């Protein structure tokens, strides 16, 4: 199997790109676009599962896209090991569930929604697999361009500010990344990661260039001093797009930080204190920022920043246990965060608001969503038996092992705050009495967003001579009080799938832990990565 797979790696980028183009060419047939998109994502998922199986014993698969065997440094390498195949697998799951959610909210009916998602996935696969920091820059751009489209498209109802900030910050970070790559090339003479192995340890000039690269990627990962853009842009688009982005952009950047620090800096212990300081700040500032927020999604986005701090502790420790825990945390976090965005998003898409003050009593009205939210929230806070407990416990054990007691203290303190924040959402949204105008708000929102006929019915009531199309049966039933607004099952299922996965990884943590350990081994000993790219 290890012989057949490497030449197929470029397909992970090529097929979604091609299918994105096909999807964009389909003009009228919405159903065909849905089928193309879900089919491609499922195929990608199947391929990534195959890659996880092939790399679970620490094998590194490498392919030279340029077929230049005599000069492997410039042959455009694609490399897959346990770490990036795992991340790719989880991202495919998130892609499928977010697209299902977007289909349920009818966002996916827009002609360019599916093509954008597919091109985004092509960029993600490329950014994860590439073994070349310039190609990393190119693939991050391929990933970002459709994201700009998605953000502007779905955020147009909320104004363009979110999209403006997002594009500006990302372009600035990309320019900085380009400068960093230029500096690395000027000092080391190559941009091939395998050839750069340990270059930053030998030559401080390369370390400066590598530092600029890592700074630029940290902006994209929303690490604390440069996190402000995330909280101002992610809540400005639709819940489906927020869930999709939450698992993709910052996480690909975190993967890049892990990879570059492992190879370029060879896990150099000189700079680890910087990472530990920054991660502790990230954890604290993220969780404290969430206190002042009033909508479910902005609270969750602030928590995302705090969780990014936890994930990066793995790099800050750079021990076997630390990296294993960090990678496990990364995978767990992607699933749980998307599940939270989708379950609160289902409420937002049905009742028209994510403001805690305008919601209430959801536990009685929507018991299923309440259960899903509870599972994911407890997992995020790190309570057993969910995957969050295993993740947090192993991270804290890893910090104690290295005697970084203050980092462990911050991690414990922040998880208490996380639990409090989740309780704030729980009490505000799910407990208490529902506000009197809940149903009317829900119908008004649906008219605004999806063109439902509620407002036309109202106009008819005010002006009986005006003839407007007949109200749908559901609409009049709700208006007369016979039926209550309910979250449809198709909005519940995506979040439920992800919540199920976190329960699965809570009880069956050993499986994911074993895979994370292999990935950590690969990061600790990059020789195999180097040999796979440079040799043969």
């Amino acid at each position, binding site marked *: 199997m290890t012989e057949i797979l490497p030449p197929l790696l470029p397909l992970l980028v090529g097929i979604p790109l091609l299918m994105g183009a096909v999807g964009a060419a389909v003009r009228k047939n919405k159903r065909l676009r849905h089928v193309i998109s879900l089919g491609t994502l499922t195929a990608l998922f199947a391929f990534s599962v195959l890659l996880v199986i092939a790399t679970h014993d620490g094998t590194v698969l490498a392919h030279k896209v340029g077929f230049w065997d005599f000069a492997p440094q410039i042959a455009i390498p694609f490399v897959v090991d346990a770490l990036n195949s795992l991340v790719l697998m989880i991202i495919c799951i998130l892609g499928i569930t977010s697209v299902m959610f977007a289909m349920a909210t009818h966002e996916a009916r827009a002609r360019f929604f599916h093509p954008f998602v597919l091109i985004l996935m092509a960029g993600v696969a490329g950014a994860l697999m590439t073994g070349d920091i310039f190609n990393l820059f190119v693939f991050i751009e391929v990933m970002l361009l459709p994201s700009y489209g998605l953000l502007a498209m779905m955020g147009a109802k909320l104004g*363009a500010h*979110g999209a403006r900030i997002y594009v500006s910050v990302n372009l*600035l970070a990309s320019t900085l990344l380009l400068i960093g790559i*230029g500096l690395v*090339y000027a000092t080391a003479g190559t941009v091939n990661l395998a050839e750069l192995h340990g270059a930053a340890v030998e030559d401080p000039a390369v370390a400066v260039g590598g530092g600029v690269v890592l700074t630029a990627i940290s902006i994209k990962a929303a690490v604390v001093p440069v996190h402000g853009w995330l909280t101002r842009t992610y809540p400005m688009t639709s819940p489906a797009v927020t869930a999709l982005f939450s698992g993709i952009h910052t996480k690909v950047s975190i993967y890049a930080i892990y990879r570059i620090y492992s190879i370029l800096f060879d896990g150099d212990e000189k700079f680890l204190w910087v990472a530990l300081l920054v991660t502790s700040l990230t954890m604290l500032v993220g969780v404290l920022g969430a206190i002042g927020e009033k909508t479910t999604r*902005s609270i969750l986005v602030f928590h995302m920043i705090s969780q990014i701090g936890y994930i990066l502790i793995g790099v800050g420790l750079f021990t076997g246990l630390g990296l294993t825990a960090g990678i496990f945390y990364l995978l767990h976090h992607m699933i749980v965060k998307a599940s939270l965005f989708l379950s609160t998003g289902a409420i937002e898409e049905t009742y028209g608001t994510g403001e805690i003050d305008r919601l209430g009593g959801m536990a009685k009205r929507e018991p299923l969503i309440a259960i899903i939210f509870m599972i994911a929230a407890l997992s995020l806070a790190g309570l057993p038996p969910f995957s969050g407990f295993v993740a947090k416990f192993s991270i804290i054990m890893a910090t104690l092992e290295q005697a970084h007691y203050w980092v462990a203290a911050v991690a414990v303190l922040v998880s208490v705050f996380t639990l409090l924040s989740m309780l704030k959402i729980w009490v505000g949204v799910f407990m208490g009495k529902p506000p009197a105008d809940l149903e009317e708000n829900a119908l008004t929102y649906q008219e605004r967003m999806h*063109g439902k006929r509620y407002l036309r019915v109202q106009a008819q009531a005010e002006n009986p001579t005006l003839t407007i199309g007949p109200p749908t049966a559901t609409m009049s039933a709700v208006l007369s009080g016979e039926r209550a607004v309910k979250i449809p099952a198709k909005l519940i299922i995506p979040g439920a799938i992800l919540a199920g996965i976190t329960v699965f990884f809570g009880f069956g943590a050993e499986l994911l832990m074993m895979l994370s350990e292999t990935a950590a081994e690969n990061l600790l000993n990059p020789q195999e990565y180097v040999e796979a790219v440079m040799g043969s």
Partner: protein
Amino acid sequence: MSIAIAVGLLTAAAVYLFMQRGMIRIVLGFILASHAANLLLFAAGNTAFRGVPYIGTSDYGEGADPLPQAFVLTAIVIAFSITMFMVTLAITTTGDDDTENDEDSPAKVLTAPDKDDAAGSKVDTDSTGAVGAATGGADASPSSPVHDFEASDFTAQDDDAAEPPNADEGSDR
């Protein structure tokens, strides 16, 4: 040396422009910043060697390093496309290119019901189009392919809204 000074000047000008409030100025700042990055990449290939970097056209000792030139080419294309997108963002959805945030924060669509919304304005344009069609203006009919892309390509539409272009318009006829 001249390249170093040029990079410094371009970066300083870019940072100055980033501090402005108008979106167009910020975009201009980004153009300058990407020029600075490109010059730096170019300098990474050692500008002392200026030969044509094709095999067989010049000595290996004199030929330029082709890799940074390829990098710069790629970076120019990417920066150009994003710049175009930013210019578009500067003129769409709001009246001007001011980046100052107004009071409506995310997910507060319902707090300002008097603001004109996407659904409302869409119905308006549809009805005017239908009137134009009824009065004989064939070109104004919403189904005529004036543009390659329609508004519905970029916004999610429900079938409920899409099916009768306007029921009341039909009854008037």
